[in-house]
């Protein structure tokens, strides 16, 4: 079985800064992979490269067999047109630390924006799907609220529903609970747990080690733009091989 996501020797430079320094990783369909690591280790960068919010400097990323952001012609990579690049992104859902809901649109409008304007779904059908998703994240009574009338936890649940409305084959989460007050973290993790259990393929950057242990199939530890260590979640957390991993885990558990 070929992996859904194939990251092959990827480098990403920001001027002199090497944010990714030769990263390789495979993620299979239905897998939940959590990425942990210290600040500045390149976790967000890797996620953003997977859905082409950032262009990689070297290497190759494939999702569902398609090269992300480029087309291979006669042994040369040619940048995709805006339209084709957008089509690739539409198949990958992303949830941001800062939610990034559209503040000028109501919750339901946020949810149908992608389906109606990107996929060409009919209004009514998109609204029905959106209502189901709101129910799934426990927010049906908020359909006509504006984002700034919601708590952080509610906003993040809407953001997850908005990404799901596109029926993506892959969901990316960049520290989805880091901007939340502690008492609101649980409700968001609960929704994500549900997604993991229903077979979604997820890559989650998180500092919630407990969540990672419970939900992740695999954990990847990054440092300095490289993958230092990866393994079965429970094994890696119980018995990290690298001193850097050990130090990081000691620090976050303290």
């Amino acid at each position, binding site marked *: 079985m070929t992996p859904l996501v194939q990251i092959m020797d990827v480098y990403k430079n920001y001027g002199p800064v090497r944010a990714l320094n030769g990263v390789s990783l495979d993620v299979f369909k239905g897998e939940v992979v959590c990425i942990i690591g210290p600040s500045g280790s390149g976790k967000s960068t890797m996620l953003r490269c997977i*859905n082409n*919010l950032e262009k990689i400097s070297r290497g190759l990323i494939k999702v569902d067999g398609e090269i992300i952001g480029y087309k291979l012609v006669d042994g040369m990579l040619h940048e995709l047109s*805006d*339209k084709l690049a*957008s*089509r*690739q*992104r*539409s*198949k*990958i*859902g*992303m949830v*941001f630390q*800062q939610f*990034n*809901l*559209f*503040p*000028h*649109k*109501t919750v339901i409008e946020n949810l149908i*924006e*992608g389906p109606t*304007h*990107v*996929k060409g779904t009919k209004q009514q059908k998109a609204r029905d799907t959106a209502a189901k998703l709101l129910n799934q994240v426990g927010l049906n009574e908020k359909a*006509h*609220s*504006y*984002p*700034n*009338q919601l708590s952080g936890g509610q906003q993040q649940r809407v*953001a997850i529903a*908005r*990404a799901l409305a*596109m029926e993506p084959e892959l969901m990316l989460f960049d520290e989805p609970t880091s901007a939340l007050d502690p008492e609101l973290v649980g409700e968001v993790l609960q929704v994500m747990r549900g997604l993991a259990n229903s077979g979604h393929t997820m890559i989650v950057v998180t500092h919630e080690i407990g969540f990672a242990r419970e939900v992740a199939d695999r954990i990847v530890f990054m440092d300095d733009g490289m993958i230092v260590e990866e393994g079965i979640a429970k094994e890696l957390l119980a018995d990290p091989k690298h001193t850097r991993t050990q130090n990081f885990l000691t620090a976050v558990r303290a």
Partner: protein
Amino acid sequence: MSSIVKQSSDDAFKDKYHYPIATKFRYGRYLAAAIILFIAILIVHAFVVGKIDWGVVREYLFARSILTGIVNTVVLTIISMFLGISFGLIAALMRGSSNLVVRNTALFYIFFFRSVPVLLQLLIWYNLALIFPTIAIPGLFSIPMTEVATPFVAAVLAFGISQGAYTSEVIRSGLLSVDRGQAEAAKSLGMTKGQTLRRIIIPQAMRVIVPPVGNETIGMVKYTSLASIIQYREIIYSAQTIYFANAQVIELLFVCAFWYLVVVSILSFGQMHIERYYNRSSRDTAKGETKK
């Protein structure tokens, strides 16, 4: 704890601490009112005893050429602003381009048309016939410049193009005011650059863009009077034509002032409503919860 609750419901306790609050006497307010009233009386008195013929003001208020003049003023304002906002948007987008040539072209446009006075631009557009007698693409068509560069066309070009240079800065700051995460969220849903701009960025930028563009529109209503010097028949030109004949100068200028007040009032009202629309999602004004 329970003793505090008991105390505050105790009347004796209440009486002890509940003093009436004296109304503050606002000397400043009364003084200002007195001064303003005095000045107002002076001004009204001056105009009553002054040699102004209110009958003439009334007579010309709805005169045909005055009405045509104010309509022409409004038409010129609307078309110039439309052109200005269009050019402004294009220049603002060009300034944000990653293409060096495109970016610098926009910068030059803004620099040039902000530097040359509008009055001068009016005269130049109007007098283009002096250097280019005809507009022609050989073999296709050829038109005498005097037919193209009418007062109206010259005025629209001068006002629209120079307004665009100013408006581009307003639009640019509006676009920059929208959080970068918004564009990323839109992209991650698979929206193209154009869709992101139209559906996500511009609607949010409008909150920042509308107030200054509203002010500029109101400014434009008055700027258009400059076009009288190239014989565009806006309201001041019409009034002048009349008072050159009948010498009722002040009366006709008052008529103009009246109509400017009417137009600006309508525009201010419109601006207020547009601003309210684009602020609808703010927590304090939104009715999202109660909307069906």
